[in-house]
């Protein structure tokens, strides 16, 4: 029996070794995955570090000095890249919002003109309106990235506000206390100290002493959403696209089976054009892709309460273009791979690697610069941007035409190359 096992093992190895391309893919796939994921995920673990700082647009309209001091402090933070000017000009709210809408930056910090004024006022009067610090955020940015940034900024703002208000609070406290001096000295002094400490909030009541600063998070002008997205809203598009491109393998194998069982030859002997033959093979998979996307988004809506944006037509356009690109890539795999093993290996390699590079698993904006450039050469990145524009940024059909156009361009190129290389015999 052992000998028979050995003989069968040797036979299987011989067969495998005869398909060198399939073997290469089997080994290449995990290597690619490790390399790509390590580089891409480097952004997650290294994001906000010296090597990979997070860029923060700062719009400082403050007439006073408080915001300037905060910004100066933020510039010393390792892992943050403060951007105050654009082409030599100081950033305005409008310009900064446009940069975020265009996808060039993800986060903006804005100080209003009366920021310092309100900070000072809050030092002596708790009932003045709060000084508002605005975080303007691309809705597609997850909390895992925003959280540390927001925490750092809030910390510096609160610190600066406290330090700014401290003299006023001390002065007010002393004045209140000194009013009691004509009475017996000891109790009066006690009252002074008590008043002072209350004002300075030194007895662990710091959290109760308001600096009069309020933080708010909003999308930029140009992005219309009724509520900020939750993590499902941000993740469902990515996983949907990830699933869609897995259509490559069944599509490729279906055509391969048709060739190997002889029916392809019989169909070519029929009065049937090659275009009709291929379209007839592709359309079912295209339909499956559309149903896939509808199903996944439905699950997202019902189970995780995601919203699908404001424009159903925009969603349909992106979905159709994504399915076209996925099917084109599937036909390309069929044309390039010659054996079943090659088809399986190549389709899995492309599905996983392009998904990683395209931002399905890790946001592209925290990937290293060169990988961000590479991601733009994947249909996945454009599909993700399209879905997020609609579902997360509330954009409409006209706004997603560029992404739809690029995806259809990918589909066209894939089909063209596939037809050029496709062997009908």
């Amino acid at each position, binding site marked *: 029996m052992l000998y028979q096992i050995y003989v069968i093992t040797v036979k299987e190895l011989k067969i495998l070794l005869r398909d060198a391309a399939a073997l290469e893919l089997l080994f290449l796939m995990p290597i690619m995955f490790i390399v790509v994921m390590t580089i891409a995920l480097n952004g997650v673990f290294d994001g906000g570090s010296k090597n990979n700082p997070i860029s923060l647009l700062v719009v400082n309209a403050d007439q006073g000095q408080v915001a300037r001091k905060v910004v100066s402090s933020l510039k010393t933070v390792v892992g943050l890249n403060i951007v105050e000017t654009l082409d030599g000009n100081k950033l305005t709210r409008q310009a900064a919002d446009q940069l975020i809408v265009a996808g060039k930056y993800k986060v903006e910090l804005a100080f209003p003109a009366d920021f310092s004024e309100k900070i000072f006022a809050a030092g002596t009067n708790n009932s003045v309106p709060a000084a508002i610090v605005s975080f303007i955020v691309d809705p597609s940015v997850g909390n895992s990235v925003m959280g540390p940034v927001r925490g750092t900024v809030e910390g510096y703002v609160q610190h600066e506000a406290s330090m700014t208000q401290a003299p006023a609070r001390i002065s007010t406290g002393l004045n209140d206390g000194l009013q009691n001096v004509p009475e017996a000295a000891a109790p009066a002094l006690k009252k002074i100290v008590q008043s002072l400490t209350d004002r300075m909030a030194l007895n662990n009541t710091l959290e109760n002493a308001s600096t009069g600063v309020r933080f708010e998070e909003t999308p930029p002008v140009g992005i219309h959403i009724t509520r900020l997205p939750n993590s499902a809203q941000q993740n469902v598009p990515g996983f949907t696209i990830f699933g869609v491109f897995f259509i490559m393998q069944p599509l490729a194998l279906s055509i391969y089976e048709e060739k190997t*069982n*002889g029916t392809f*030859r019989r169909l070519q*002997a*029929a*009065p*049937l054009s090659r275009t009709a033959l291929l379209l007839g093979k592709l359309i079912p998979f295209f339909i499956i892709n559309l149903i896939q996307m509808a199903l996944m988004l439905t699950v997202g809506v019902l189970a995780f309460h995601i919203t699908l944006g404001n424009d159903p037509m925009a969603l349909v356009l992106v979905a159709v273009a994504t399915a076209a690109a996925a099917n084109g890539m599937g036909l390309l795999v069929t044309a390039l791979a010659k054996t079943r093993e090659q088809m399986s290996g190549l389709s899995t390699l492309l599905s996983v690697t392009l998904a990683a590079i395209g931002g399905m698993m890790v946001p592209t904006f925290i990937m290293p610069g060169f990988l961000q450039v590479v991601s733009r050469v994947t249909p996945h990145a454009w599909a993700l941007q399209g879905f997020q524009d609609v579902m997360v940024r509330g954009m409409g059909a006209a706004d997603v035409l560029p992404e739809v156009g690029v995806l259809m361009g990918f589909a066209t190129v894939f089909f063209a190359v596939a037809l050029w290389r496709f062997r009908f*015999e």
Partner: protein
Amino acid sequence: MSDTVLLVENIHKSFDQHHAVSGISFALEKGEVFGLLGPNGAGKTTTISMLTGLIRPDQGQITVEGINLLEQTNQAKMKLGLVPQELALYPTLSARDNLSFFGQIYGLRGRHLKKQVEQSLEMVGLKDRANEAIQRFSGGMKRRVNIAAGLLHQPDILFLDEPTVGVDPQSRNTIFESIESLNRAGMTLIYTTHYMEEAQRLCQRVAIMDHGQIIALDSPANLINSVGQGLIRIGLNNGHGLQVQNEAQQLVSVRSIVRHDDFLDVQTNDNQAALLSIMEIIRRVQAKLTSLHIMEANLETVFLSLTGKTLRD
């Protein structure tokens, strides 16, 4: 009015410097069963592929009932049917579903499609198992469905590419009977095979192919007559082959002698007379006889006389 339904003029096809088909020409008459006989690798399947429009010849013309196959391909293909060598069926679909699909590809619809499907199933004797998946059929049954799929659209010319490969004798006979029945009904058929008994039984004319060329084309009877009573293959050594050949060539009972390496292929008018005379020559010149085969006249011996090898070599 010409009864030529298929005209093949000087077709060539090469794959990566290998000449699979080199200059084949013939004309097929209406109602004929035309055989392409040759060993594996002779170019039969490549020829059929060109004649059915699967691949384009590198040069040459193919005309189907006056229609140029290379220019009006789909129009010509409607007149052709193919029963490929491999079982070209969808294994998980039933026989009926397979036939319906292929019928629809040829433009059959509705009641006409249904009628054709049922008639085809009847003809191949599988009506009672029409709803079973093909993968559950025996090899012979699959072959029969394979034939039925080529007939659905009632082609004028049916190509059968080695339809009995791997088939049990009972199914083989059923296939032969189907082909004969189709021909009696007026269908024109091209039948490729490497079994000479099939070609002899079914075909009115046979083209013998080897190395991509037709080396003989005639009725089976005429081809067989060309080798007289048969073939005697005589193995000799010690270098007397040429001398024996020259002397035996003068015998009245000998039609022709072809010398191949260490043996002589002798076509005779009279096997017995020729054999006795040649044995006497061998004895006289002191040649050494190593082997002796007497083969009756059939297509196998025709092929042997033309190429020096058997159909199964």
